[in-house]
């Protein structure tokens, strides 16, 4: 445990050093990576451990983002309270939804959460206090003055996002290594055997759904911070799909993998941009090449390394030992 805390502090220190040495755009992308890391951790917990497929994490992020924005704008509370509210609200919502979801399996759950991902962000268009299409502002304020004149807004975002992401990863990894993590894996590999060993599988599934939603909500609030607003257009179906993609590419049951998955999600548009320019550009190529790359990667990884690139390596390693 102490080793782990030391490791996370060391990781934070490295991030601080990196944050000082790269330009503004990279710092911004760093904040995005931190945001995706949290969101992907929520999928790893839900899908990789408890075996439930959700295509609605974008909607959970919307719940978190909106709760944080409403808290910040209406109560004038400190920023950390807003983030806390995002966690609480989305956890409650997740518990409610999980109660229905625990009875669903596989494709039913995927379809239901898909319907949620389509429907939920649209609610904001209906009610005035949610800001409609343009959305609500989300302003965490300027960085504290003692950090110096040179300290930019994006770097402040990066600091907050990285701190939250490290904390979230630390807590999640502890949860996954605890009794709960083991129980979820037991349910996933054999629901019947788990029930026979005295596990209340539907209660455990609801718990997984709740924690996963809390993480997603937190990610939603972090995302709201990096783009300074919450709007229905930010939490699209495309976002939900991207999250599932990132989780699968990184290996859906590996928590350290989420950093890699988040990196891919941020890097692919950049890579696609370079490739598109090489091939002469064109609007269509620029717009759809990222989707093309992501989809091809997704299909290949599902067919060849369904449990992520890490697993193949581990198995290879294992064979050598024998």
């Amino acid at each position, binding site marked *: 445990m102490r080793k782990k805390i030391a490791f996370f502090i060391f990781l934070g220190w490295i991030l601080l050093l990196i944050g000082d040495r790269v330009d503004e755009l990279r710092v911004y992308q760093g904040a995005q990576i931190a945001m995706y890391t949290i969101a992907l951790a929520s999928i790893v917990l839900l*899908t*990789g451990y408890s*075996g439930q*497929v959700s*295509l609605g994490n974008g909607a959970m992020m919307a719940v978190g983002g909106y709760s944080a924005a409403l808290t910040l704008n209406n109560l004038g509370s400190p920023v950390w309270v807003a983030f806390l509210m995002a966690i609480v609200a989305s956890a409650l919502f997740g518990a409610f939804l999980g109660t*229905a979801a625990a*009875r*669903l399996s*596989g*494709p*039913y759950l*995927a*379809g*239901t959460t*898909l*319907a*949620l991902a*389509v*429907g*939920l962000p*649209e*609610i*904001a*268009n*209906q009610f005035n206090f949610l800001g409609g299409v343009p959305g609500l502002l989300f302003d965490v304020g300027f960085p504290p003055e003692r950090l110096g004149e040179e300290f930019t807004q994006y770097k402040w975002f990066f600091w907050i996002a990285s701190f939250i992401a490290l904390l979230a990863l630390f807590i999640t990894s502890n949860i996954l290594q605890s009794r709960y993590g083991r129980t979820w894996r037991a349910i*996933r590999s054999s629901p019947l055997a788990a029930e026979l060993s005295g596990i209340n599988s539907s209660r455990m599934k609801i718990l997984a759904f709740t924690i996963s939603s809390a993480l997603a909500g937190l990610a939603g609030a972090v995302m709201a911070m990096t783009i300074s607003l919450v709007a229905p257009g930010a939490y699209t*179906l495309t976002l939900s*799909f991207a999250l*599932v*993609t990132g989780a*699968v590419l990184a290996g*859906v*049951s590996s928590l350290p993998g989420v950093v890699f998955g988040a990196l891919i999600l941020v890097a692919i548009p950049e890579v696609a941009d370079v490739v598109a320019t090489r091939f002469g550009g064109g*609007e*269509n*190529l620029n*717009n*759809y*090449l990222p*989707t*093309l790359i*992501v*989809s*091809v990667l*997704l*299909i290949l990884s*599902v*067919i*060849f390394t*369904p*449990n*992520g690139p890490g*697993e193949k390596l581990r198995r290879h390693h294992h064979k050598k030992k024998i």
Partner: protein
Amino acid sequence: MHKLLETLLIGLSTGSIYALMSIALVLVWRSTRVVNFAQAGQAMLSTYIGFEIASRTEIFWLGLAFAIAAGALLGAGVDFFFMRVLFKHAVSGAAAVVAPVIATLGLLGLIRSIVGLIWGGEFKSIKAPASTDGFTIGETTIPFSALNLLVIGTVFSILIVLAIVFQRTNLGLSLRASAYAPEIAQLAGIKTARIRTIGWAIAGGVGGVAGMLVTSNNFLSPYSLDLLLVFGFIAAVIGGLESMVGSVVGALILGIALTFILNYVGTSLVFIGGFVVLILVLLVKPDGIMAKGKARRA
């Protein structure tokens, strides 16, 4: 009173399009145990092909025929080149539950990007085969148009054709048999793999029709059929995901329910309305409105 009538009629027309999509999903689910999220993509690509033909020849029905053919080919192709490969790499471990879902999502993205690369993202429209002006009853004009009537007519003729194929032909019998009990069907001399591919082809063709009909009243873009997929899925679940009749009934109920929300509650709540209907059905009758008990489930 007019508003109520109008809501029912429009709901029937929208619902009948959902019915096609949900039949496509049910067909694939019954034969392959996969909810094919790529169905929206397949329908989209077929609709783009139908759109090209319809806008060049100015004949909607020729476009529709091409869309059906393209959809059928595409459906068979997806099963033959994609699903068989996926199932051959016998998936195990953590991803086993998610693999088919993820794979079809990947396929959806792949088709979407290919369509985007060829046709771009701008909205296209197909010239409607009938007037989109509403009928006039007495002095008031309601939004229900000749096109809506034509949509209902087309859908129901297709449903009748499907019913005849499934109930009266040998092919239909093999399709039902291999969905119900693949091993026994195989022992009875049915080539189940080939029958499955035919099932995918029928689903693809039906999806193509759904895409063309939606587009005749709306715009076509690489994202325009996602909602159709979601509502088709909800309709299929209302019907129990196993029964074609159930999914048609489910789709009509859903279409009318959503039109009620649209006309009486609020435009933006339509989408979440679908979700609420879905949750209600899953809580109250998780096996669908057509479930007669567990006995018949293989």
